[in-house]
């Protein structure tokens, strides 16, 4: 309550005791829409698959076994590490990481630009950033496909401008996936960084310059460390959904650029599906995301200690 002042203090006293009641809706929503589905998924991942989709209530580790180990065609050979799915995971991390980096490189200057505009025009800029997101993600991803294909407007423009001699082939490459992810999640990078930069005290940059720091040193040793919480929040908000995305890799990446999201999606689609395996892959993805978040939280604790 420190720093709230007398009004805050009184409000806190007035509502004291009703706290548990007020937080109830939040708990109900988290319980029904977050905890329960995760529990169902965790349970399914340990069940036996039913061939036309669905599960049989017989506990087994088969799904995890299939993910990590190769026991040959009939399951009776010495177990070897199964690399297929691990590679898909690795590619997903790599793709999501590059997309995050791309978002950071574009998002940071954008957020900086908006936060340094006069107060009244900031709202307009923020609004403009969110406008494309009123359109459905699927539609946006498909339009991206049209934009970047070999005879699409982007290549046409570059050709006409004389910047390239032949179309750049982007569609069905890793780059296309990164561009798709970048486009899908850019605002999640811009908004938290904007919030951090808006609170940034520009006198710090003056102090750094006064103490003989070049612009580069000011950026790397003062500005970035001070707005770091916003940068990290933005990176998490972009990285986590990118990791599980399936629209962009499916539509822009082609078969070679399969990511976890697509792998999981396939397990729940049609007769070829394997619910326990899909659930297991989802649980492994979830654990990885949690590890990233826990490492981050621990870092924060250590810094504020």
């Amino acid at each position, binding site marked *: 309550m420190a720093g709230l002042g007398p009004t805050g203090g009184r409000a806190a006293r007035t509502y004291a005791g009703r706290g548990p009641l007020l937080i109830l809706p939040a708990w109900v929503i988290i319980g029904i829409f977050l905890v329960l589905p995760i529990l169902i998924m965790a349970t399914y991942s340990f069940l036996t698959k039913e061939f036309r989709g669905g599960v049989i209530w017989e506990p087994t580790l088969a799904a995890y076994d299939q993910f990590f180990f190769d026991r040959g065609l009939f399951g009776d050979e010495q177990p070897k590490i199964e690399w297929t799915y691990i590679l898909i995971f690795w590619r997903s991390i790599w793709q999501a990481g590059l997309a995050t980096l791309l978002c950071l490189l574009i998002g940071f200057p954008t957020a900086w630009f908006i936060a340094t505009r006069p107060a009244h025009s900031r709202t307009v800029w923020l609004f403009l950033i969110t406008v494309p997101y009123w359109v459905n993600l699927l539609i946006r991803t498909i339009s991206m496909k049209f934009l970047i294909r070999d005879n699409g407007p982007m290549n046409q423009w570059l050709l006409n401008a004389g910047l390239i001699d032949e179309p750049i082939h982007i569609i069905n490459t890793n780059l296309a996936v990164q561009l798709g992810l970048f486009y899908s999640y850019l605002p999640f990078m811009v908004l938290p960084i904007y919030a951090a930069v808006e609170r940034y005290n520009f006198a710090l940059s*003056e*102090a750094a*310059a*006064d*103490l003989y720091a070049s612009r580069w040193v000011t950026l790397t040793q003062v500005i970035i460390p001070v707005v770091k919480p916003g940068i990290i929040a933005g990176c998490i908000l972009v990285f986590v959904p990118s990791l599980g995305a399936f629209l962009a890799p499916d539509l822009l990446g082609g078969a070679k650029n399969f990511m976890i999201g697509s792998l999981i999606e396939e397990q729940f689609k049609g007769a070829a599906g394997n619910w326990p395996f899909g659930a297991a892959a989802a649980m492994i993805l979830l654990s990885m995301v949690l590890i990233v978040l826990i490492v981050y939280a621990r870092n924060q604790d250590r810094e504020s200690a």
Partner: protein
Amino acid sequence: MAEDQGDIAVDIDHVTKRYGDFTALADVSLAIRSNEFFTLLGPSGCGKTTLLRCIAGFEDITLGAIRLYGDNIVDLPPNKRPVNTVFQQYALFPHMDVTRNVMFGLLRLGQSEAAARKRAGEVLDLVQLTQFADRLPAQLSGGQQQRVALARALAPNPKVLLLDEPLSALDLKLRQAVRLELQQIQQETGITFIFVTHDQEEALTMSDRIAVISDGRLQQIGTARDIYEEPDNKFVADFIGETNLIDVTVAGIDNGQATCTLPGGNHFTCPAAQGAHSGRGHLSVRPERVSLSDPAQGLLTGTVSRLIYLGTDMHVDITLTDGEVVTARVQNSAGTRIPAMGETIGLNFEAGAARLLID
């Protein structure tokens, strides 16, 4: 203070600063001597902070030159100017501990980690913060943060230290203590201090010399005594302490002495500010220099219209026959005659207590 030109630390030479149509500084010229505690004093918005920021390099000047020991520095960016600033809100780096904050400038100047750490230790010792060296700024009180800001700016041993209202965020008690400390540090280090404040008491108690600024113009430069006792114009007389401005008609000025006619017709001769002219004018007389007497013996006469008891002294407003109000501060000592409300009374002051101002 040495008077020769070689001792000028900062030479502000006809500096003008405009923001669009607004003139923040209008043709300001002043020379700040080496090792001087120099104060820029004025009300908020007068341009004093702008001038400081022009010296630091955060603002470009529109016209003129700023020379640091003879070198024109107007084209240098702030990080190339050998001056350091203590910011109003301190602007400490929140992610660095006290030592790291103080080392920042030293490392940028190319000092080794070890040398910078040693120097930071010395400076923190000077400002008595050694025991807080490992704390983050957020873990310090306002007064301690203020001293970190000072240490950080002193560490590179700048030729000139700029202080932008560094005490304004502190409470009164602390402000008075830090004033003495600042003065002491200035004398120990021998660094030229340029101190910006709107607080006249701060200016009077700390400075070797004061420049009074108003509306972007330099009003007067002098020692605390000069500007209090010999103000040049109405702004300075009124801004520094309290004063009575008495309407007079000036018959002539000869050898710095003005002969004038006071309200009520008495003739009076007193010193005139350089540049004052004959005709209608104003005399400045400090309330504590006004004494009360019988109406017949007074230079001025009027009736007591207000009495305020202030403990050690008494504030007496006297309304003259032409409606002007003159204030006297009467010492509350034994034997002092306390006037009564409505009483007709005479007012006196010595020639040396009055000064004809530039109008």
